[in-house]
């Protein structure tokens, strides 16, 4: 196994790991808030569940990036490629946008969605506004995912 391959695998692991940690934190925070509302008014379960799901997407983006990267370097499928150190660094760097932005955006989305749970609790008819506000944070995770994917598919191996 070359140093390049190790770096690429490390990048894939980071993408899944950091984005996953962010999502776990975000979903956990919204879950706490959602449980508070449901303990008083169980009929609001479905509405707060949507908010709880939102910060979970970054973890999926991290997973998707990791799978794409592992597939591109042949760890999944045809057999691992012999990567140079420069190529390995390239893959490692390609994973960083979704790893870092995924982590941070999931935590902040969790905070926004938890605040949205408060809207749902007090004014359930305005639940959509809470969802939109939380979804705005998603934009940056999507942009980071896009950059990661573009980089992964434009590295020559």
């Amino acid at each position, binding site marked *: 196994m070359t140093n390049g391959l190790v770096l690429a695998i490390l990048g894939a692991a980071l993408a899944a790991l950091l984005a996953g940690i962010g999502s776990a934190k975000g979903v956990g925070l919204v879950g*706490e*808030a959602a449980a508070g509302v449901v303990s008083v008014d169980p009929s609001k379960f479905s509405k707060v569940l949507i908010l709880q799901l939102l910060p979970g997407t970054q973890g999926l983006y991290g997973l998707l990036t990791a799978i794409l990267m592992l597939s591109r370097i042949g760890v999944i499928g045809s057999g691992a490629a012999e990567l140079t150190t420069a190529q390995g660094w390239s893959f490692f760097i390609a994973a960083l946008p979704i790893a870092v932005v995924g982590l941070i955006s999931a935590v902040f989305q969790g905070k926004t969605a938890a605040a949205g*749970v408060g809207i749902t609790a007090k004014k359930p008819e305005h639940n959509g506004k809470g969802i939109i506000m939380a979804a705005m944070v998603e934009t940056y995770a999507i942009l980071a995912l896009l950059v990661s994917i573009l980089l992964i598919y434009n590295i020559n191996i």
Partner: protein
Amino acid sequence: MGTKYANAVAAVRAMENSLLSRSDIEQLISSATRSELENIVAAKRGTGSEELTLEGVWDTLRGYAPDCRELEILLYRNDFHNLKAALKSMIAGKEPQGYYIRPTNLDLEALYPVLSAKEYEQLPEYISDTAAQAYELLTRTLDGQLADSLVDTACMKAMQAAAEKSGSDFMKKYAQLVTVCADIKTAYRCCRMKKQRSFIETAVCGSSGLDKEQLVRASLGGTEGLFSFLESTSWGDAARLLAESPAKFEKWCDDVIMELAEGARMQAFGADPLAAYFIAAEAELKNLRIITVCKESGTDRETITERMRKLYV
């Protein structure tokens, strides 16, 4: 503040829906009979729900945020009242249970025996010294009013110290407002009763909002002196209302606390919304009490409306 108490704050937001709104209060004021009034309240709370009591609200809040020490400051006034009740019952040889106010941070079953045995160290730190001093003063002078003043002042000081220690701006402001209101009230009463400087100095606490020395000096100049001093401070509104009627001043005191609580309505995390909900429940219960008493005494609609405290929702 971080994201603390996300669970508790969300639960409180859901519970706020069952607080009475302005239109509910209007309906209650218009209700013809007590049963109609009770029906309106029951409809708002929802079927099967328990009656709103401060004890219930407190237990609920503690259930959601058992580690939230800031909230305890809200009960300091009850704690110190209970200390006074226990001490006076002890002197009078009566059972104190009927005089206690709940909720409280103190163990009411243990309070009387602890005071009887003079085991003050078993009381929470913020109240133990006061208990010893008040007992000594009461047994030495048998002056209940003086002992009350000592305990009330100690209560305000304990609130300010605890708020400062908590680092919560909300609690600091709450303690300041409660102290200012109590000090103005005390100073006014001292003026009316022509109390000596030494008594006023014991009875007035002082805070960053209202200087003790200046207030004491103003109080010695009679009500006119007091009002003109207050006019020169940021509590001019309070002075004008107090000059009009003590009832209006009482309402103002409740309303400024509610205005503080309103600031927490926009927060999604932290202890402030929990404290604000407790204050809101307190105000609601006070409004219900005012309406009930006014209805029973045949007070007219306008007067009842005038006396209504600000609402949280």
